[in-house]
């Protein structure tokens, strides 16, 4: 297993957010974490990379227990994180944003260079010196993903990559994620959009009110419209 999460519990102050979250991701797999707004998808990701201080449980990445490590060490193990709010550095140019993400080559993960990323996201190649603050939402979303890939991760946590993007950009995003998969990157993608998730994922988990309430292949999920209606539809 690439990533195993067991009994993950997280708190924000006195509020208990995640309850015994558990899931796993195989080598080269794309796994969707589905759920409505506020279900706990982002908190799950933030807890895995150590950005939530109050968390318990066991997180194993490539056989190593990383639950007690600080954020930057977890990321340096090859576990990349693309946050939901994009959070690009608006004062920095595209190239400088990529530079912040740069980490050394890793033996068990694909190696990304600027040039390779500019072929994956051609828009970015055309605006190398533009400050991040003067890019469209879709371009910013591409830059966040490219920036994380500069760290040569073997697994990427992608938090709602399709949120707020136009259908055309979403299509490009699907292509990019499939290319990443082909290169051998394992991916966990959180989504509210089941249609988008179906295009890219091998398996899915559903999270509701901080608890995992379904886990299975996309075909198994399609066979259970009751579950889909209860936890995903608006």
């Amino acid at each position, binding site marked *: 297993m690439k990533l195993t999460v067991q009994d993950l519990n997280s708190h924000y102050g006195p509020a208990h957010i995640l309850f015994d979250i558990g899931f796993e991701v195989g080598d080269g797999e794309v796994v969707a974490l589905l759920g409505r707004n506020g279900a706990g998808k982002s908190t799950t990701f933030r807890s895995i990379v150590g950005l939530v201080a109050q968390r318990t449980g066991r997180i194993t990445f490539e056989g190593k227990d990383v639950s007690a490590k600080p*954020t930057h*060490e977890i990321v340096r193990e090859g576990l990349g994180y693309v946050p939901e709010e994009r*959070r690009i*550095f608006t*004062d*920095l140019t595209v190239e*400088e944003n990529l530079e*912040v993400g740069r980490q050394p080559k890793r033996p068990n993960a694909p190696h990304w260079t600027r040039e390779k990323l500019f072929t994956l996201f051609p828009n970015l190649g055309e605006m190398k010196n533009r400050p991040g603050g003067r890019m469209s939402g879709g371009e910013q979303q591409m830059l966040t993903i490219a*920036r994380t890939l500069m760290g040569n991760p073997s697994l990427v946590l992608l938090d709602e990559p399709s949120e707020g993007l136009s259908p055309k950009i979403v299509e490009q995003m699907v292509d990019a994620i499939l290319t990443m998969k082909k290169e051998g990157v394992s991916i966990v993608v959180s989504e509210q959009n089941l249609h988008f998730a179906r295009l890219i994922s091998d398996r899915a988990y559903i999270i509701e009110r901080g608890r995992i309430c379904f886990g299975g292949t996309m075909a198994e999920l399609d066979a259970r419209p009751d579950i889909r209606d209860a936890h995903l539809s608006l």
Partner: protein
Amino acid sequence: MAFYVVQFLTGLASAASLFLVASGLSIIFGVTRIVNFAHGAFYMIGAYIAFTLTERFSGAFGFWGGVVAAALAVALIGVLVEMVLLRRIYHAPELFQLLGTFGLTLIVEDLVVLIWGPDDLVGRRAPGFKGAVDFFGQNIPSYDLFLIVLGPVVLGILWLLFQRTRWGVLVRAATQDRDMVAALGVNQKWLFTSVFAVGVFLAALGGALQIPRDAVHHAMDLRIIVEVFVVVVIGGLGSIVGAFVAAVLVSELNAFGILIFPKISIILVFLVMAVVLIVRPWGLFGKPEAAARKTPGLSVNPWRPLTSNERLGSLAALVIAAMLPLFAGNYALTVGSEIAIFVIFAISLHFLMSVGGLASFGHAAYFGLGAYGVAFLAKMAGLPMIVCLLLGPLLGCMGAAVFGFFAVQLSGVYFAMLTLAFAQIVWSIAFQWVSVTGGDNGILGVWPASWAASPSHFYWLALGVAALVTIALRIAVFSPFGYALRATRDSVLRSEAVGINAKRIQWTAFVIAGTTAGIGGALFAYLKGSVFPDNLGISLSVDALVMVLLGGVETVSGGVVGAIVYKALNIWLVSQTDLSKLVLGGFIVLIVVVFPKGIVGMLEILAQRRRKSSPPGSSLLAKPIESAE
């Protein structure tokens, strides 16, 4: 004409050191969000170490090598400070960080005197730059010309460092979003440490380069830090270019202000700063700050008025305090009066900080203005004591009304720096305007009227006023005004959305706090029989802050307890040791690291634990609500 050109060049030369120190402060703040009060102290140590090294090693190599080695040595000290102290308080509210680094400054001030002695030290001239250049009959020291060139060179080097190196890119990224930088695999700890080292290096270099121009002395830290605060407020925190432009501006204003207002040249700088703040509250080259981090509380306990038992307890404490003259001698009564006066001073700041969320670092200005108000009325107008006591605080009120208007336009660290700068300006006026204030000699002979002259009578007066002021401020906390003020503290935006005029409410609170402090100052003038510039100095402002933090900033009346404990301790310490700053500084650092909740805050937590363990049903309500930070 030539004279003005030379004056202009002198201003440019002074700007070099100011720019070095200010850019260091700016860089450190940008990444770590710490306003490093100790920056002036690092500047001073840089000058002292450079003095020693350049005395020891002769020749050009000895001088220039000594200057650079001194800056490097101080940077190393900075690294130690960062690793041992600052790493523990990065997550504390800004106020505690400012206070912690202030504690460091106090420690350094005493250490410097211990090592190098109290006298001014005159350093060597720089080899190669000993002469002067003739300019139409006016002399310009060639070292000044060197400094004029150095400023832009350093600006260029810093620009390259930040634009052209990976380190610079990481620093700029961290300035914007620290967590995201960590989430991309960058070790923040070492990034912070290296940034701190660079910032301290710049400060120390600024100090070391001053030795051929100015004598090295143990008060140079406070002088520079106030100027640096003014520079970064004008230029915009976090902007290197802003620091450069503002350093030049401030230095030129100083150079020409001397010609226009020879007595109160600092007024000019103040006026420019006020204009800049009205037009661009975030400085000339700064960026509007995203919603500021909450300043005082780590968490907030719901406040409530005292229960009837607690009221009886407070009354009993007051009655016991009032019985002091029955068994204590005159010295104890004088100390008692002083403590009562400091209770007034402390609760006035406590009101502003805990209820308003506005941490003033220059609250002594209004205390001192109250004292000077009394002195003017009593000595110049010859009014009787009771009239002076009633009217004197109005000077504090007016000062607070003027400065408060500008200060409440800002929040967080900007507010703290601005209030500090204002207080320093008032201090400078009191110090420089000798014909009116008597300067350093102060105003003597402000004696109480016969009805209040005996120590016991004066003690009762001070105690009575302190009790009245405490009650009045508590009533204000639980009045609609107090609720509105707390709303602006917790969220300016939300309070404005329900129709509260946040700035006006905060301004009112500032004036109330300033007037109250003025009442304390008025009594203080009569207690001491004299008024000095120290009555509005930085150290008194910091005393007030320490009293508030010691009592507990998240409490309703922690200032009372904080003032009593701190003042008693302080009076005792000064009588016991010559190194009171060292001990006090250590004490402040200790409070910041170990007791961030203060005495009353600790007691409340203990009381809460007891309460929580008995009735389990109400435990949810008794839990502190964590702030959003």
